[in-house]
Protein backbone atom coordinates (compact mmCIF):
# COMPACT_ATOMS: atom_id res chain seq x y z
CA UNK A 1 0.00 0.00 0.00
CA UNK A 2 1.26 3.43 -0.84
CA UNK A 3 1.23 5.78 2.11
CA UNK A 4 1.19 9.54 1.78
CA UNK A 5 4.36 11.43 2.63
CA UNK A 6 2.68 12.82 5.72
CA UNK A 7 1.87 9.37 7.02
CA UNK A 8 5.42 8.25 6.41
CA UNK A 9 6.77 11.34 8.13
CA UNK A 10 4.65 10.84 11.27
CA UNK A 11 5.37 7.14 11.22
CA UNK A 12 9.14 7.55 10.97
CA UNK A 13 9.38 10.53 13.29
CA UNK A 14 6.36 10.24 15.52
CA UNK A 15 5.70 13.34 17.64
CA UNK A 16 4.92 13.18 21.33
CA UNK A 17 5.49 9.52 21.96
CA UNK A 18 5.38 8.77 25.64
CA UNK A 19 3.54 8.46 28.87
CA UNK A 20 2.06 11.02 31.26
CA UNK A 21 1.35 10.33 34.91
CA UNK A 22 -1.94 8.51 34.75
CA UNK A 23 -2.67 9.10 38.43
CA UNK A 24 -2.44 12.90 38.19
CA UNK A 25 -5.82 14.65 38.27
CA UNK A 26 -4.55 16.94 35.51
CA UNK A 27 -4.08 14.00 33.15
CA UNK A 28 -6.76 12.29 31.13
CA UNK A 29 -6.02 8.90 29.57
CA UNK A 30 -7.85 7.22 26.72
CA UNK A 31 -7.02 3.64 25.84
CA UNK A 32 -9.05 2.32 22.94
CA UNK A 33 -8.88 -0.57 20.54
CA UNK A 34 -10.21 -1.07 17.03
CA UNK A 35 -12.02 -4.38 16.82
CA UNK A 36 -11.56 -4.41 13.03
CA UNK A 37 -7.86 -5.04 13.26
CA UNK A 38 -6.89 -5.43 16.90
CA UNK A 39 -4.95 -2.19 16.91
CA UNK A 40 -4.70 -0.28 20.19
CA UNK A 41 -4.12 3.40 20.89
CA UNK A 42 -3.37 5.18 24.12
CA UNK A 43 -3.65 8.95 24.14
CA UNK A 44 -3.09 11.20 27.14
CA UNK A 45 -3.68 14.88 27.72
CA UNK A 46 -2.50 17.18 30.47
CA UNK A 47 -4.82 20.09 31.23
CA UNK A 48 -4.08 23.30 33.14
CA UNK A 49 -6.38 25.38 35.34
CA UNK A 50 -7.63 27.36 32.30
CA UNK A 51 -8.85 24.19 30.66
CA UNK A 52 -6.05 24.33 28.11
CA UNK A 53 -4.24 21.20 26.98
CA UNK A 54 -0.58 21.84 27.76
CA UNK A 55 0.77 18.45 26.83
CA UNK A 56 -0.33 15.38 24.90
CA UNK A 57 1.36 12.00 24.50
CA UNK A 58 0.52 8.78 22.73
CA UNK A 59 1.52 5.22 22.20
CA UNK A 60 -0.02 3.14 19.46
CA UNK A 61 0.09 -0.51 18.56
CA UNK A 62 -1.10 -0.34 15.02
CA UNK A 63 -0.59 0.25 11.36
CA UNK A 64 1.25 3.21 9.90
CA UNK A 65 -1.99 5.16 9.53
CA UNK A 66 -2.95 4.62 13.15
CA UNK A 67 0.48 5.73 14.34
CA UNK A 68 0.33 8.79 12.10
CA UNK A 69 -3.25 9.62 13.17
CA UNK A 70 -2.35 9.56 16.84
CA UNK A 71 0.88 11.46 16.32
CA UNK A 72 -1.00 14.14 14.41
CA UNK A 73 -3.75 14.23 17.04
CA UNK A 74 -1.24 15.00 19.79
CA UNK A 75 0.14 17.87 17.72
CA UNK A 76 -3.33 19.29 17.22
CA UNK A 77 -4.32 18.86 20.85
CA UNK A 78 -1.51 20.88 22.34
CA UNK A 79 -2.64 24.44 23.08
CA UNK A 80 -6.32 23.73 22.44
CA UNK A 81 -9.00 24.09 25.09
CA UNK A 82 -10.67 20.88 26.10
CA UNK A 83 -13.87 22.08 24.47
CA UNK A 84 -12.13 22.68 21.15
CA UNK A 85 -10.37 19.35 21.41
CA UNK A 86 -13.76 17.71 21.66
CA UNK A 87 -14.52 19.06 18.20
CA UNK A 88 -11.69 17.27 16.43
CA UNK A 89 -13.31 15.09 13.82
CA UNK A 90 -11.76 11.97 12.37
CA UNK A 91 -12.40 13.28 8.87
CA UNK A 92 -10.03 16.17 9.56
CA UNK A 93 -7.34 13.60 10.18
CA UNK A 94 -8.28 11.63 7.07
CA UNK A 95 -7.97 14.78 5.02
CA UNK A 96 -4.69 15.94 6.51
CA UNK A 97 -3.03 12.55 6.10
CA UNK A 98 -4.75 11.63 2.83
CA UNK A 99 -5.87 8.29 4.23
CA UNK A 100 -7.49 5.86 1.80
CA UNK A 101 -10.96 4.47 2.61
CA UNK A 102 -9.69 1.25 4.23
CA UNK A 103 -7.70 3.38 6.64
CA UNK A 104 -10.52 5.59 7.83
CA UNK A 105 -11.08 3.44 10.91
CA UNK A 106 -7.51 4.25 11.96
CA UNK A 107 -8.50 7.91 12.23
CA UNK A 108 -11.69 6.94 14.05
CA UNK A 109 -9.52 5.25 16.61
CA UNK A 110 -7.66 8.53 17.14
CA UNK A 111 -10.91 10.47 17.56
CA UNK A 112 -12.18 7.89 20.03
CA UNK A 113 -8.92 8.06 21.96
CA UNK A 114 -9.18 11.87 22.24
CA UNK A 115 -12.74 11.66 23.54
CA UNK A 116 -11.89 8.87 25.94
CA UNK A 117 -8.99 10.92 27.30
CA UNK A 118 -11.21 14.00 27.77
CA UNK A 119 -13.85 11.99 29.56
CA UNK A 120 -11.28 10.41 31.82
CA UNK A 121 -10.10 13.90 32.70
CA UNK A 122 -13.67 15.11 33.31
CA UNK A 123 -14.60 12.20 35.55
CA UNK A 124 -11.40 12.60 37.55
CA UNK A 125 -12.30 16.23 38.15
CA UNK A 126 -15.87 15.61 39.20
CA UNK A 127 -17.55 16.41 35.88
CA UNK A 128 -20.04 14.30 34.00
CA UNK A 129 -18.57 12.38 31.08
CA UNK A 130 -19.78 13.71 27.76
CA UNK A 131 -22.12 11.27 26.08
CA UNK A 132 -20.45 10.24 22.85
CA UNK A 133 -22.69 10.10 19.87
CA UNK A 134 -21.44 8.28 16.86
CA UNK A 135 -20.46 11.35 14.96
CA UNK A 136 -17.64 9.98 12.92
CA UNK A 137 -17.82 8.73 9.40
Amino acid sequence: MAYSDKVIDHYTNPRNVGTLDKSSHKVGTGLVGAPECGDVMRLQIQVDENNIITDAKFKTFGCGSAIASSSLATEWLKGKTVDDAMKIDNMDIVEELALPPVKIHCSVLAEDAIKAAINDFRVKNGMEPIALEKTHH
Partner: protein
Amino acid sequence: MNIPIYLDNNATTPMDPRVLEAMLPYFNEKFGNAASRNHPFGWVAEEGVDYAREQVAKLIGASEKEIIFTSGATESDNLAIKGVFEMYKEKGNHIITTVTEHKAVLDACKHVEKLGGKVTYLPVKVDGIVDLDVLEAAMTPETILVSIMYGNNEIGVIQPIKEIAAIAHKHGALFMTDATQAVGKIPVDVNTDGIDLLALSAHKIYGPKGVGALYVRRKGPRVKVTAQMDGGGHERGMRSGTLNVPGIVGLGKACEIAGQEMESEAKRLSTLRDKLEASLTQLDESYVNGNVEHRLPHVANISFKYVEGEGLMMAMKDLAVSSGSACTSASLEPSYVLKSLGLSDDLAHSSIRFGLGRFTTEEEVDYAIEVTKKAVTHLRELSPLWEMFKEGIDLDSIEWAEH
Protein backbone atom coordinates in the same frame (compact mmCIF):
# COMPACT_ATOMS: atom_id res chain seq x y z
CA MET B 1 24.28 -4.08 -1.76
CA ASN B 2 21.04 -3.28 -3.55
CA ILE B 3 18.10 -2.06 -1.51
CA PRO B 4 15.51 -3.49 -1.03
CA ILE B 5 17.16 -6.77 -0.20
CA TYR B 6 15.44 -9.80 -1.59
CA LEU B 7 14.69 -12.26 1.18
CA ASP B 8 11.58 -13.85 -0.23
CA ASN B 9 13.09 -16.87 -1.95
CA ASN B 10 10.21 -19.11 -0.93
CA ALA B 11 7.89 -17.00 -3.05
CA THR B 12 10.15 -17.14 -6.05
CA THR B 13 13.84 -17.08 -6.90
CA PRO B 14 15.78 -15.02 -9.41
CA MET B 15 16.93 -17.05 -12.41
CA ASP B 16 20.45 -18.32 -12.30
CA PRO B 17 22.39 -16.84 -15.26
CA ARG B 18 23.52 -20.36 -16.18
CA VAL B 19 19.88 -21.37 -16.56
CA LEU B 20 19.13 -18.39 -18.74
CA GLU B 21 22.08 -19.21 -20.91
CA ALA B 22 20.89 -22.78 -21.41
CA MET B 23 17.43 -21.58 -22.37
CA LEU B 24 18.30 -18.84 -24.84
CA PRO B 25 18.94 -20.95 -27.98
CA TYR B 26 15.53 -22.55 -27.58
CA PHE B 27 13.76 -19.25 -28.16
CA ASN B 28 15.11 -18.74 -31.66
CA GLU B 29 17.65 -21.10 -33.25
CA LYS B 30 16.10 -24.19 -31.73
CA PHE B 31 12.51 -23.07 -31.88
CA GLY B 32 11.00 -26.35 -33.09
CA ASN B 33 7.98 -28.12 -31.70
CA ALA B 34 9.23 -31.08 -29.70
CA ALA B 35 6.33 -33.11 -31.09
CA SER B 36 7.33 -32.56 -34.74
CA ARG B 37 8.71 -35.92 -35.75
CA ASN B 38 9.40 -35.22 -39.40
CA HIS B 39 12.22 -32.72 -39.41
CA PRO B 40 15.35 -31.69 -37.55
CA PHE B 41 13.68 -28.63 -35.99
CA GLY B 42 11.44 -30.96 -34.03
CA TRP B 43 14.24 -33.39 -33.25
CA VAL B 44 16.48 -30.70 -31.84
CA ALA B 45 13.72 -29.42 -29.59
CA GLU B 46 12.88 -32.94 -28.51
CA GLU B 47 16.51 -33.57 -27.70
CA GLY B 48 16.51 -30.55 -25.41
CA VAL B 49 13.36 -31.80 -23.70
CA ASP B 50 14.69 -35.32 -23.32
CA TYR B 51 17.89 -34.07 -21.78
CA ALA B 52 15.91 -31.90 -19.36
CA ARG B 53 13.76 -34.88 -18.46
CA GLU B 54 16.89 -36.75 -17.45
CA GLN B 55 18.18 -33.80 -15.45
CA VAL B 56 14.90 -33.50 -13.54
CA ALA B 57 14.63 -37.24 -12.98
CA LYS B 58 18.17 -37.45 -11.68
CA LEU B 59 17.59 -34.83 -9.03
CA ILE B 60 14.78 -36.85 -7.44
CA GLY B 61 16.10 -40.34 -8.14
CA ALA B 62 13.43 -41.11 -10.74
CA SER B 63 13.53 -42.48 -14.26
CA GLU B 64 13.06 -39.95 -17.06
CA LYS B 65 9.93 -41.77 -18.22
CA GLU B 66 8.28 -40.81 -14.96
CA ILE B 67 8.49 -37.04 -15.49
CA ILE B 68 5.47 -35.15 -16.83
CA PHE B 69 6.16 -31.53 -17.67
CA THR B 70 3.55 -29.00 -16.56
CA SER B 71 3.14 -25.27 -16.19
CA GLY B 72 4.24 -25.35 -12.56
CA ALA B 73 3.52 -26.87 -9.19
CA THR B 74 -0.04 -25.59 -9.11
CA GLU B 75 -0.84 -27.58 -12.22
CA SER B 76 1.13 -30.58 -10.97
CA ASP B 77 -0.82 -30.58 -7.69
CA ASN B 78 -4.11 -30.31 -9.54
CA LEU B 79 -3.21 -33.02 -12.01
CA ALA B 80 -2.07 -35.38 -9.27
CA ILE B 81 -5.05 -34.93 -6.97
CA LYS B 82 -7.86 -34.62 -9.48
CA GLY B 83 -6.19 -37.11 -11.81
CA VAL B 84 -5.82 -39.77 -9.10
CA PHE B 85 -9.36 -39.15 -7.88
CA GLU B 86 -10.73 -39.73 -11.36
CA MET B 87 -8.47 -42.66 -12.22
CA TYR B 88 -9.02 -44.58 -8.99
CA LYS B 89 -12.65 -43.81 -8.27
CA GLU B 90 -13.60 -47.47 -8.55
CA LYS B 91 -11.24 -48.16 -5.70
CA GLY B 92 -12.33 -45.45 -3.32
CA ASN B 93 -13.11 -41.78 -2.93
CA HIS B 94 -11.19 -40.69 0.13
CA ILE B 95 -8.15 -38.40 0.14
CA ILE B 96 -6.10 -37.35 3.15
CA THR B 97 -4.12 -34.13 3.27
CA THR B 98 -3.14 -31.56 5.91
CA VAL B 99 -4.32 -28.09 6.84
CA THR B 100 -0.90 -26.55 6.16
CA GLU B 101 -0.73 -27.47 2.48
CA HIS B 102 -0.36 -24.89 -0.26
CA LYS B 103 -3.64 -23.58 -1.67
CA ALA B 104 -3.00 -25.52 -4.87
CA VAL B 105 -3.45 -28.75 -2.93
CA LEU B 106 -6.19 -27.51 -0.61
CA ASP B 107 -8.30 -26.08 -3.40
CA ALA B 108 -7.80 -29.11 -5.64
CA CYS B 109 -9.09 -31.16 -2.69
CA LYS B 110 -12.09 -28.82 -2.30
CA HIS B 111 -12.81 -29.42 -5.97
CA VAL B 112 -12.69 -33.17 -5.40
CA GLU B 113 -15.19 -32.74 -2.56
CA LYS B 114 -17.56 -30.99 -4.94
CA LEU B 115 -17.28 -34.02 -7.21
CA GLY B 116 -18.42 -36.26 -4.36
CA GLY B 117 -15.03 -37.15 -2.90
CA LYS B 118 -14.29 -37.20 0.80
CA VAL B 119 -11.27 -35.33 2.08
CA THR B 120 -9.71 -35.40 5.53
CA TYR B 121 -7.65 -32.32 6.41
CA LEU B 122 -5.29 -33.47 9.12
CA PRO B 123 -4.26 -30.96 11.80
CA VAL B 124 -0.57 -30.54 12.57
CA LYS B 125 1.19 -30.44 15.91
CA VAL B 126 2.31 -27.08 17.34
CA ASP B 127 5.64 -27.54 15.57
CA GLY B 128 3.91 -27.96 12.21
CA ILE B 129 4.55 -31.67 11.85
CA VAL B 130 1.84 -34.22 11.13
CA ASP B 131 1.07 -36.67 13.93
CA LEU B 132 1.62 -40.10 12.39
CA ASP B 133 -0.89 -41.73 14.74
CA VAL B 134 -3.53 -39.26 13.65
CA LEU B 135 -2.71 -40.04 10.02
CA GLU B 136 -2.90 -43.77 10.63
CA ALA B 137 -6.25 -43.37 12.37
CA ALA B 138 -7.64 -41.40 9.43
CA MET B 139 -6.84 -44.12 6.88
CA THR B 140 -9.87 -46.06 5.65
CA PRO B 141 -10.34 -48.79 3.06
CA GLU B 142 -11.71 -46.03 0.83
CA THR B 143 -8.52 -43.97 1.04
CA ILE B 144 -6.91 -43.78 -2.39
CA LEU B 145 -4.44 -40.97 -1.83
CA VAL B 146 -2.44 -39.32 0.91
CA SER B 147 -1.13 -35.92 -0.18
CA ILE B 148 1.27 -34.30 2.26
CA MET B 149 3.82 -31.66 1.39
CA TYR B 150 7.54 -32.24 1.76
CA GLY B 151 8.65 -28.85 3.08
CA ASN B 152 6.27 -26.09 4.07
CA ASN B 153 6.44 -22.82 2.15
CA GLU B 154 5.79 -20.57 5.17
CA ILE B 155 7.67 -22.18 8.02
CA GLY B 156 9.95 -24.58 6.16
CA VAL B 157 9.00 -27.57 8.31
CA ILE B 158 9.86 -30.92 6.72
CA GLN B 159 7.35 -33.72 7.19
CA PRO B 160 8.41 -37.29 8.00
CA ILE B 161 7.90 -38.32 4.39
CA LYS B 162 9.19 -41.90 4.60
CA GLU B 163 6.98 -42.72 7.56
CA ILE B 164 3.96 -41.08 5.94
CA ALA B 165 4.52 -42.99 2.71
CA ALA B 166 4.80 -46.26 4.63
CA ILE B 167 1.48 -45.64 6.37
CA ALA B 168 -0.23 -44.76 3.09
CA HIS B 169 1.10 -47.89 1.40
CA LYS B 170 0.25 -50.14 4.32
CA HIS B 171 -3.37 -49.16 3.79
CA GLY B 172 -3.25 -49.53 0.03
CA ALA B 173 -3.25 -45.81 -0.79
CA LEU B 174 -0.91 -43.86 -3.05
CA PHE B 175 1.36 -41.21 -1.62
CA MET B 176 1.72 -37.84 -3.29
CA THR B 177 3.90 -34.98 -2.07
CA ASP B 178 4.07 -31.34 -3.04
CA ALA B 179 7.85 -31.01 -2.91
CA THR B 180 7.98 -27.56 -4.50
CA GLN B 181 9.95 -26.08 -1.62
CA ALA B 182 12.12 -29.10 -0.90
CA VAL B 183 13.37 -30.30 -4.28
CA GLY B 184 16.79 -28.86 -5.00
CA LYS B 185 17.18 -27.68 -1.41
CA ILE B 186 17.45 -30.97 0.44
CA PRO B 187 17.94 -34.53 -0.83
CA VAL B 188 14.67 -35.94 -2.17
CA ASP B 189 14.58 -39.47 -3.57
CA VAL B 190 11.29 -40.90 -4.75
CA ASN B 191 12.43 -44.47 -4.16
CA THR B 192 13.99 -44.24 -0.72
CA ASP B 193 11.17 -41.91 0.35
CA GLY B 194 8.41 -44.07 -1.13
CA ILE B 195 6.82 -41.32 -3.19
CA ASP B 196 4.27 -42.19 -5.90
CA LEU B 197 3.60 -38.69 -7.17
CA LEU B 198 5.61 -35.52 -6.63
CA ALA B 199 5.06 -31.91 -7.68
CA LEU B 200 7.92 -29.50 -8.32
CA SER B 201 8.37 -26.08 -9.87
CA ALA B 202 11.25 -24.40 -11.70
CA HIS B 203 10.91 -20.90 -10.32
CA LYS B 204 11.64 -21.98 -6.75
CA ILE B 205 15.00 -23.39 -7.80
CA TYR B 206 16.42 -20.50 -9.83
CA GLY B 207 14.66 -21.55 -13.00
CA PRO B 208 11.97 -19.80 -15.04
CA LYS B 209 8.37 -19.20 -13.98
CA GLY B 210 5.51 -21.11 -15.54
CA VAL B 211 7.15 -24.51 -15.79
CA GLY B 212 7.23 -27.47 -13.47
CA ALA B 213 6.83 -31.20 -13.39
CA LEU B 214 4.84 -34.01 -11.91
CA TYR B 215 6.63 -37.22 -11.11
CA VAL B 216 4.34 -40.20 -11.67
CA ARG B 217 5.66 -43.61 -10.55
CA ARG B 218 5.81 -46.24 -13.28
CA LYS B 219 6.91 -49.31 -11.35
CA GLY B 220 5.78 -50.79 -8.06
CA PRO B 221 3.04 -49.65 -8.46
CA ARG B 222 2.41 -48.28 -11.91
CA VAL B 223 0.51 -45.09 -11.19
CA LYS B 224 -1.78 -43.34 -13.64
CA VAL B 225 -3.60 -40.08 -13.53
CA THR B 226 -6.51 -39.00 -15.68
CA ALA B 227 -5.52 -36.04 -17.85
CA GLN B 228 -7.11 -32.78 -16.78
CA MET B 229 -6.63 -31.10 -20.13
CA ASP B 230 -7.73 -32.63 -23.42
CA GLY B 231 -5.72 -32.33 -26.58
CA GLY B 232 -2.85 -33.87 -28.48
CA GLY B 233 -1.96 -36.48 -25.89
CA HIS B 234 1.48 -35.18 -25.03
CA GLU B 235 3.40 -36.41 -22.00
CA ARG B 236 2.16 -39.99 -22.25
CA GLY B 237 -1.39 -38.79 -22.55
CA MET B 238 -1.38 -37.21 -19.10
CA ARG B 239 -0.80 -33.60 -20.08
CA SER B 240 -1.66 -32.29 -23.51
CA GLY B 241 -0.23 -29.10 -24.88
CA THR B 242 2.80 -28.19 -26.98
CA LEU B 243 5.78 -28.38 -24.68
CA ASN B 244 7.29 -25.18 -23.33
CA VAL B 245 10.72 -26.15 -24.65
CA PRO B 246 12.80 -23.20 -23.39
CA GLY B 247 11.10 -23.42 -20.00
CA ILE B 248 11.64 -27.15 -19.77
CA VAL B 249 15.30 -26.78 -20.76
CA GLY B 250 15.59 -24.15 -18.03
CA LEU B 251 13.96 -26.44 -15.47
CA GLY B 252 16.38 -29.19 -16.43
CA LYS B 253 19.40 -26.94 -16.06
CA ALA B 254 18.09 -25.59 -12.77
CA CYS B 255 17.75 -29.15 -11.46
CA GLU B 256 21.25 -30.03 -12.58
CA ILE B 257 22.79 -27.04 -10.82
CA ALA B 258 20.71 -27.60 -7.69
CA GLY B 259 21.86 -31.21 -7.55
CA GLN B 260 25.51 -30.22 -7.84
CA GLU B 261 25.40 -27.38 -5.35
CA MET B 262 22.80 -28.57 -2.88
CA GLU B 263 25.12 -29.87 -0.24
CA SER B 264 27.37 -26.84 0.01
CA GLU B 265 24.48 -24.41 -0.45
CA ALA B 266 22.43 -26.03 2.29
CA LYS B 267 25.36 -25.64 4.67
CA ARG B 268 26.01 -22.04 3.69
CA LEU B 269 22.35 -21.06 3.90
CA SER B 270 21.61 -22.78 7.17
CA THR B 271 24.63 -21.04 8.71
CA LEU B 272 23.32 -17.67 7.53
CA ARG B 273 19.78 -18.52 8.58
CA ASP B 274 20.94 -19.59 12.03
CA LYS B 275 22.85 -16.36 12.40
CA LEU B 276 19.77 -14.36 11.49
CA GLU B 277 17.59 -16.37 13.80
CA ALA B 278 20.00 -16.26 16.72
CA SER B 279 20.28 -12.47 16.44
CA LEU B 280 16.58 -11.82 16.10
CA THR B 281 15.55 -14.13 18.91
CA GLN B 282 17.76 -12.05 21.19
CA LEU B 283 14.92 -9.58 21.04
CA ASP B 284 12.49 -10.13 23.93
CA GLU B 285 9.28 -11.94 23.13
CA SER B 286 10.29 -13.22 19.72
CA TYR B 287 9.56 -16.76 18.71
CA VAL B 288 10.59 -19.08 15.91
CA ASN B 289 7.63 -20.78 14.28
CA GLY B 290 7.72 -24.45 13.42
CA ASN B 291 10.02 -27.32 14.23
CA VAL B 292 13.62 -26.10 14.14
CA GLU B 293 15.23 -29.48 13.64
CA HIS B 294 13.24 -30.74 10.71
CA ARG B 295 13.36 -27.67 8.56
CA LEU B 296 14.51 -26.46 5.16
CA PRO B 297 17.93 -24.81 5.44
CA HIS B 298 16.96 -21.42 4.04
CA VAL B 299 13.81 -20.38 5.87
CA ALA B 300 13.22 -18.66 9.19
CA ASN B 301 9.75 -17.66 10.31
CA ILE B 302 9.78 -15.46 13.39
CA SER B 303 6.99 -13.81 15.37
CA PHE B 304 7.53 -10.59 17.26
CA LYS B 305 5.00 -10.18 20.03
CA TYR B 306 3.54 -6.73 20.81
CA VAL B 307 4.44 -5.45 17.38
CA GLU B 308 1.71 -4.81 14.85
CA GLY B 309 2.16 -6.61 11.55
CA GLU B 310 1.40 -3.86 9.08
CA GLY B 311 3.47 -1.31 10.94
CA LEU B 312 6.27 -3.84 10.99
CA MET B 313 6.14 -4.32 7.23
CA MET B 314 6.23 -0.57 6.79
CA ALA B 315 9.32 -0.30 8.98
CA MET B 316 10.96 -3.08 7.02
CA LYS B 317 10.40 -1.66 3.59
CA ASP B 318 14.10 -2.09 2.76
CA LEU B 319 13.67 -5.83 3.05
CA ALA B 320 11.56 -7.83 0.63
CA VAL B 321 10.10 -10.38 3.01
CA SER B 322 6.70 -11.98 3.57
CA SER B 323 4.53 -11.34 6.58
CA GLY B 324 1.98 -13.54 8.24
CA SER B 325 -0.81 -11.49 6.79
CA ALA B 326 -2.05 -10.03 3.57
CA CYS B 327 -1.77 -6.42 4.61
CA THR B 328 -3.72 -4.76 1.85
CA SER B 329 -7.11 -4.28 3.43
CA ALA B 330 -8.69 -3.41 6.74
CA SER B 331 -9.85 -6.99 7.18
CA LEU B 332 -6.47 -8.62 7.49
CA GLU B 333 -6.42 -12.36 6.98
CA PRO B 334 -3.78 -13.95 9.14
CA SER B 335 -1.82 -16.85 7.68
CA TYR B 336 -3.76 -20.12 7.97
CA VAL B 337 -0.50 -22.02 8.31
CA LEU B 338 0.56 -20.04 11.38
CA LYS B 339 -2.95 -20.23 12.83
CA SER B 340 -2.91 -24.00 12.46
CA LEU B 341 0.15 -24.05 14.72
CA GLY B 342 -2.01 -22.38 17.34
CA LEU B 343 -0.78 -18.81 16.91
CA SER B 344 -3.23 -16.03 17.77
CA ASP B 345 -4.25 -13.66 14.99
CA ASP B 346 -2.05 -10.97 16.51
CA LEU B 347 1.03 -13.10 16.61
CA ALA B 348 0.41 -14.43 13.11
CA HIS B 349 0.20 -10.86 11.84
CA SER B 350 3.48 -9.92 13.42
CA SER B 351 5.36 -12.82 11.90
CA ILE B 352 7.98 -12.47 9.22
CA ARG B 353 9.24 -15.11 6.85
CA PHE B 354 12.85 -14.66 5.85
CA GLY B 355 13.62 -16.75 2.78
CA LEU B 356 17.32 -16.86 1.94
CA GLY B 357 18.60 -17.96 -1.42
CA ARG B 358 21.54 -18.74 -3.65
CA PHE B 359 22.34 -15.07 -4.14
CA THR B 360 21.93 -13.98 -0.52
CA THR B 361 25.16 -12.70 0.99
CA GLU B 362 26.25 -12.46 4.60
CA GLU B 363 26.32 -8.70 4.26
CA GLU B 364 22.65 -8.76 3.31
CA VAL B 365 21.78 -10.97 6.24
CA ASP B 366 23.62 -8.60 8.59
CA TYR B 367 21.69 -5.70 7.16
CA ALA B 368 18.41 -7.59 7.52
CA ILE B 369 19.20 -8.25 11.18
CA GLU B 370 19.88 -4.57 11.76
CA VAL B 371 16.73 -3.37 9.96
CA THR B 372 14.51 -5.88 11.73
CA LYS B 373 15.90 -5.15 15.17
CA LYS B 374 15.46 -1.44 14.61
CA ALA B 375 11.92 -1.88 13.34
CA VAL B 376 10.82 -4.05 16.23
CA THR B 377 12.43 -1.75 18.77
CA HIS B 378 10.91 1.37 17.18
CA LEU B 379 7.44 -0.13 17.13
CA ARG B 380 7.68 -1.39 20.68
CA GLU B 381 8.72 2.03 21.88
CA LEU B 382 5.51 3.24 20.27
CA SER B 383 3.39 0.41 21.58
CA PRO B 384 1.14 0.83 24.62
CA LEU B 385 0.85 -2.96 24.75
CA TRP B 386 4.58 -3.38 25.12
CA GLU B 387 4.61 -0.85 27.96
CA MET B 388 1.69 -2.57 29.65
CA PHE B 389 3.36 -5.93 29.21
CA LYS B 390 6.58 -4.59 30.72
CA GLU B 391 4.65 -3.20 33.67
CA GLY B 392 2.67 -6.39 34.06
CA ILE B 393 -0.66 -4.68 33.36
CA ASP B 394 -3.59 -6.76 32.21
CA LEU B 395 -4.24 -6.11 28.54
CA ASP B 396 -7.94 -6.70 29.15
CA SER B 397 -8.25 -3.16 30.50
CA ILE B 398 -8.43 -1.90 26.91
CA GLU B 399 -11.75 -0.47 25.94
CA TRP B 400 -12.77 -1.82 22.56
CA ALA B 401 -14.65 0.84 20.67
CA GLU B 402 -17.90 -0.13 19.05
CA HIS B 403 -18.41 1.17 15.58
